[in-house]
């Protein structure tokens, strides 16, 4: 129909749209590049959410001090998922569709991340996990995969847990005590495969609900089955209840754990026996003498006056993973030269070398590898005087 318009009218229309176009791009230039965060900011795992927020906050400050990305400042928009997958999905949709975030950073809970990833893939918006370790988050089988991670991966963690139990405790018949959700299932599969590969039998596999307080019945079954080591998978609250139940049974079996205990005041909740649990981490500030770690810790203390001692950065993995993930995301956006989802996704593959907090990343992501960290980055730790320290310390 446009061709039938009188020439003058057509000119006016073209000028108007050109002006509008200019106005829009001017508005965009002044606009921030928004990154979303969906994590638990309340409830039992609130402290982990806080750690993730702080890690991102510090990285965003550093990036903005150097001019932001694509000449625009980064802005963090956080939403509380209350550790609930359906709330996480709602929040992710709102962030992507209404707020218009470039990417969504995930939280602590595998079930929540597993629920958000299909949406990210469908809407072609990158998802970066700084914590949840469920294998299927990044290895989700989607033809067009937008899920990345700077954190541990259950399948690899499980191999490390088995290797550690064999090496440290000479485990011959380990039992599993796992939380009954998607995270527990991810590890049940991983541990079974890792045990098979190590040619070891499992004494038994027991599950508990996240709000159970008495795990004696489940643990008694493992004891009767002759378990000589326990693999523990669960968040900080129930992990503490497992330790208390072991205390009540006076069963001094070694406990090798995924990193749930790191998510809160495990030593206070579990009491003196907290120290018997050895758990995996990707990073600890304690005993870390790298200049980067010192600098980041100082910057954290300056930015968040609530941080006074090492005990206040106990979920160091949350801070460190989120810090590195945010920097890597900024590099991906910069490499993409755009904030469009598919371009940013491909931007992740273009990242070269980045000296991060956890390690120096060298081409951390490829189309076949969406996980930036692997077994060589894992370290075994335990609680000591409110701090997480490497077991060797």
């Amino acid at each position, binding site marked *: 129909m446009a061709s039938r318009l009188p020439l003058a009218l057509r000119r006016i229309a073209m000028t108007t749209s050109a002006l509008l176009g200019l106005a829009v791009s001017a508005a965009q230039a002044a606009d921030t590049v928004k990154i979303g965060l969906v994590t638990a900011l309340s409830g*039992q795992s609130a402290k982990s959410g806080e750690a993730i927020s702080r890690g991102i906050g510090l990285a965003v400050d550093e990036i903005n001090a150097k001019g932001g990305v694509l000449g625009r400042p980064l802005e963090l928009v956080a939403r509380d998922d209350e550790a609930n997958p359906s709330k996480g999905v709602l929040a992710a949709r709102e962030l992507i569709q209404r707020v218009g975030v470039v990417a969504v950073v995930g939280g602590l809970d595998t079930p929540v991340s597993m629920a958000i990833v299909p949406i990210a893939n469908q809407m072609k918006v990158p998802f970066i996990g700084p914590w949840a370790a469920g294998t299927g988050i990044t290895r989700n089988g989607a033809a067009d995969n937008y899920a990345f991670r700077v954190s541990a991966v259950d399948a690899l963690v499980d191999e490390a847990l088995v290797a550690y139990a064999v090496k440290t405790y000479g485990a011959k018949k380990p039992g599993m005590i796992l939380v009954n959700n998607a995270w527990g299932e991810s590890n049940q599969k991983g541990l079974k495969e890792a045990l098979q590969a190590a040619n070891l039998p499992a004494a038994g596999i027991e*599950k*508990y609900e996240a709000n159970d307080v008495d795990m004696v019945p*489940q643990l*008694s079954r493992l004891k009767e089955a002759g378990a000589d080591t326990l693999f523990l998978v669960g968040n900080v*609250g129930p992990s503490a209840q497992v330790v208390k139940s072991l205390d*009540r*049974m*006076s069963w001094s079996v070694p406990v090798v754990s995924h990193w749930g205990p790191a998510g809160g*005041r495990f030593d206070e909740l579990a009491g003196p026996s907290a120290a018997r649990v050895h758990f995996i981490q990707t990073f600890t500030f304690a005993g870390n003498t790298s200049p980067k770690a010192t600098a980041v810790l100082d910057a954290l203390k300056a930015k968040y006056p609530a941080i006074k001692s090492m005990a206040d950065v106990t979920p160091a993995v949350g801070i460190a993973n989120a810090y590195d993930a945010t920097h890597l995301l900024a590099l991906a956006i910069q490499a993409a030269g755009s904030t469009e989802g598919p371009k940013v996704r491909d931007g992740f593959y273009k990242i070269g070398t980045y000296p991060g907090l956890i390690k120096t990343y060298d081409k951390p992501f490829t189309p076949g590898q969406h996980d930036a960290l692997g077994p060589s980055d894992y370290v075994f730790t335990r609680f000591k005087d409110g701090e997480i320290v490497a077991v060797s310390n």
Partner: protein
Amino acid sequence: MLTSILVSGLGLGSMYGLVALGFHVTYAVSGTVNFAQGSVVTLGAVLAYGLGVTLGWPMSAAIVLALAGCALFGLVVERALVRPFVARGSDAWLLATVAGGIVLDNTVLFTFGKEPRSLPSPLATKPVEILGTGIYPLQLVIPVVGLALAFAIRTVFRRTDLGRVLLAVAQNADAARLMGIDVRRTVACAYALSATLAGIAGLLIAPLFSVSAELGTLFGIKAFAVAILGGIGSATGVILAGLLYGLVEAGVTATLGSTYTQLVVFSVIILALTLRPDGLLGRAAVNKV
């Protein structure tokens, strides 16, 4: 295994019973209940933590003040969330008390913080071995306190003048008023007592769990189920139902695994209510015309 089921079941069960007894007390006197009971469980534990641990007061003083705080909250609920609606013949107190509980939960979240903390108790540090199962002394104290309180309340209702006053108000508020009974104050007292019971439950269970803003939520829901199951008008029924609930819950967890706990427990409740619609020891309401 059996000892562990018994200890765990009777312990939690008597706490469900105690909170449910709170539902019974207000229902018996006024025909209304405080749906914020679960949140009062939280309040008791959080106040004791705040006074005893954060401020470092002697635990005995902290406990007394925490319970006083719970009683006060009960009075506020009655005055602000129940009385105005009942006076207008409205059932909106139902929602008002639910809302009151949510407000309290979030106030706790805001002031106490999001992180679960541990409330130390000398009764829950060193387990003692009984019949091959290690248990904390507190786990033995809990059912004893629960049953003792239930018995005391039953006695008060049945044997004392105060009990007769409460029952008079329950049976016919207008007639009671004509007899010179202060109905308003009686109902307010029932709410304070009800909240105190929930507070005691909170104080007793907190050292076994951890203190958090979510401590009482599930308790409140389970306790209401227990109150209905026992027959909300019967103190004995409510306590029995609490113990039964706790035992079935612990038994199912130990034998079938906790995946099946809620599934089986609530199926049993539906079945029980189908067979006895007025609860285990409840009586059908008689409408006198």
